[in-house]
């Protein structure tokens, strides 16, 4: 293998805060090089520097042994380096091939006037796709009609057609289903075989161990180390990331008896996303609902909280209840921590205090006036219970890290002493330390008698935390499993089962 990229002594700081300090490592041609680290470790900044979106304060980048200086992403693209963003830079109204050739459209002359040559662009786009084994994208489709996975592949094809031979992918699998991830990985392997180098950022360690050849770990802007993937264990990578040896990614499960008391009973729940769902949730129980993306578990959670229409019956502590709006659920002590906290959980422009107070203003106000003292006390209590790191309670939630944002979402419901918490992917996009705290929080709440519906597609955490697991596939519950004698493979089997039969 030959060294294609060498990062030497890179420093970067933003308004006095050091983000990267003396980063040195090299990347070999044709390898999949994973970059891992907690949120704020400096991964994205480093990638932006390599891709020319940011300029380093110090240090050098060598491409094939010669020093390069990028002043813009265009410079990097000309040198063969493309960054595939989490948010795609595609024009939704245009077709796949038009996007691939955006800004460098092929043309033909007709009476000395340049006209766009759609045929040639389509042909050339197809060639690129074929060469790199990306066979399932309809080049004629408009990008807005594509799935997330296909959008991503389009983005990759665009980079390849611009002759990029180093692809930087920032959390490419975050929004993909398991199958799409597999497809992406097989395409990445194909690219690798053709000499394309891939730099890969991911929070999912399982994936890194599946696809990467080498892993580089960053912590607090410093390089911890670069290791060959077959010379290191997952636990070692975790300790490198967090800087102390963590025995486990999960806290120990507290020993407890779960009473037979029924907290929630769901009978024949149906909607356009799920069919005939029945289950019982006991007091103090953590009930995992596992499944692949799109299996309907997210919609199920949102329906019980009143965000979506459904048919069927819901019983709370034996009494039939009607839920048609979130207000109804909130009054009954049923709360949702949504999968997408930016979309449903927080008002980003507003402060920690206001977000905390929003659903609880009835408790904090008298005659319509907000009682500042009461409100502040409550915010303070929640911040200290959840160990939320904020500069002040007036800080905008937009400026918090993912983990702390999630704690604000969790904290606002605790004020109302929940009966049922519906946690939908509560650890998504959150670093390991904060994940651990959220797991501990879940146990703590369960010990207090709160029942938890734990919706997650991360099988390891479902297995570790749940008292019982329901597996969903294509809108139906296909199996109930006891986590004590279940493996990730078992869950997967029932999660994809519906698709096969």
């Amino acid at each position, binding site marked *: 293998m030959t060294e294609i990229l060498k990062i030497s002594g890179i420093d970067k700081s*933003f*308004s006095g805060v050091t983000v990267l300090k003396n980063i040195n490592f090299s990347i070999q041609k044709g390898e999949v090089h994973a970059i891992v680290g907690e949120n704020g470790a400096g991964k994205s900044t480093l990638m932006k520097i390599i891709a020319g979106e940011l300029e380093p304060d110090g240090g050098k980048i060598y491409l094939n042994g010669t020093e390069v200086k990028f002043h813009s992403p265009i410079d990097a693209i000309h040198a063969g380096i493309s960054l595939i963003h989490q948010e795609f830079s595609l024009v939704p109204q245009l077709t796949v091939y038009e996007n691939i050739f955006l800004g460098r459209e092929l043309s033909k002359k007709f009476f000395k006037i340049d006209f766009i040559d759609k045929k040639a662009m389509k042909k050339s786009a197809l060639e690129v796709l074929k060469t790199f084994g990306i066979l399932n994208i309809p080049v004629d489709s408009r990008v807005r009609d594509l799935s997330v996975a296909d959008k991503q592949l389009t983005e990759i094809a665009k980079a390849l057609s611009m002759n990029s031979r180093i692809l930087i992918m920032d959390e490419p699998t975050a929004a993909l289903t398991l199958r799409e991830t597999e497809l992406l990985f097989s395409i990445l392997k194909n690219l690798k075989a053709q000499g394309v180098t891939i730099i890969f950022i991911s929070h999912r360690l399982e994936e890194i161990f599946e696809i990467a050849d080498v892993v580089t770990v960053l912590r607090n802007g410093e390089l911890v180390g670069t290791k060959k993937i077959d010379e290191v264990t997952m636990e070692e990578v975790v300790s490198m990331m967090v800087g102390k040896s963590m025995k486990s990614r999960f806290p120990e499960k507290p020993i407890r008896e779960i009473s037979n008391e029924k907290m929630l009973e769901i009978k024949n729940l149906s909607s356009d996303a799920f069919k005939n769902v029945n289950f019982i949730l006991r007091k103090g129980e953590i009930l995992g609902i596992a499944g692949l993306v799109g299996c309907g578990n997210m919609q199920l959670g949102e329906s019980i*909280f009143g*965000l979506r229409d459904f048919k069927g019956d819901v019983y709370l502590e034996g009494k039939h209840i009607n839920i048609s*709006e*979130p*207000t109804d659920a*909130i009054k009954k002590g049923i709360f*949702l921590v*949504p999968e997408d906290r930016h*979309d*449903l*959980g*927080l*008002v*980003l*422009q*507003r402060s920690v205090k*206001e977000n905390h*107070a*929003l*659903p609880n*203003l*009835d408790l*904090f*106000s008298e005659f*319509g*006036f*907000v009682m500042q003292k009461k409100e502040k006390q409550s915010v303070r209590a929640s911040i200290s219970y959840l160990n939320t790191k904020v*500069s002040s309670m007036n*800080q*905008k939630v937009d*400026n918090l890290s993912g983990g702390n944002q999630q704690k604000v979402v969790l904290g*606002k419901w605790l004020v109302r002493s929940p009966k049922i918490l519906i946690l939908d992917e509560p650890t998504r996009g959150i670093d390991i330390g904060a994940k651990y705290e959220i797991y501990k929080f879940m146990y703590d709440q369960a010990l207090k008698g709160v029942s938890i519906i734990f919706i997650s597609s991360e099988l390891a955490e479902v297995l570790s935390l749940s008292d019982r697991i329901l597996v969903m596939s294509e809108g139906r519950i296909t199996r109930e499993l006891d986590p004590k004698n279940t493996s990730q493979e078992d869950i997967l089997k029932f999660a994809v089962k519906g698709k096969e039969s």
Partner: protein
Amino acid sequence: MALSNGFIRKYGVIFGLLGIIIFFAIESPNYFFTTSNFILISKQSSINILLALGQMFVILTAGIDLSDGAIAGLVGAVAAGVTVATGNLFFGLVAGLGVGIGFGIVNGIIVAFAKVPAFIATLATMSAITGITLIYTQGEPIWNLPSSFDFIGQGNLLDIPFSIILMALSFVVVWIILERTKYGRHVYAVGGNIKASRAAGVKISSVLISVYAISGLLAAIAGIILASRLGTAEPSAGSGYELDAIAAVVLGGTSLFGGEGWVVGTIIGGYIIAVLNNGMTIMNISSYYQEVVKGLVILLAVMMTSFGKKYWNE
């Protein structure tokens, strides 16, 4: 960084206003920089600021109310017409305020339930309300208003013009509502993230309808002051006023995307416009040029806030 960003947004506009005042004070110390002139400026700005305070509620929910100038015009006519017809000021005021709130509610219902974008909804009602004013007045001004009616826009209470008192009261009430009440929090939240607000149990449609109703109410007060100040209700009164009101809100740092704003900023924004008008008139600048300058100042101010924001976010 958050602090600096907020700082620029919040206090930049104060420095802007001070800068303009200092400029005119140097250019015209004898006429501009006098107590009587500042009272005049306040009086002149009161109508725009009342409209702007109402407009602010709507803009905070990421909407816009293009009809508030038209509502002010119609309310002026109705209040004057009913007062003249019944000979009773009280009936005139009640009718006027009722019409303002009523059309505000109509705007709100169209936006909240028919889900028509606010820009289109209020553009349509603006046109319709302007027409209704012309129909009601038959295109003729309404004269012969009783002196009690004139008091609202022309009278003084303890040597302070009554219209300024109304403006100040409205400011205090709006500040309390937006900064200190549950309802105010809901307004900010709905504008910031309508879905998250629903998931937090906020009743979205009542918030949306009420902000347009408040805008209608404040437009009604502005319309009554306007008719009273002129001593007649002109059928074309209020037309175009919505634009100055929107300008004041935006100058004051309220985001057109909703969820962020500052009541004091809106007042300062209103004063910037009024001081510019007044100062340029004193300097004998033709009203044609005044419009150009006003446009440029608004553009510059908004560019500075968005530049400041970008710079501090880097």
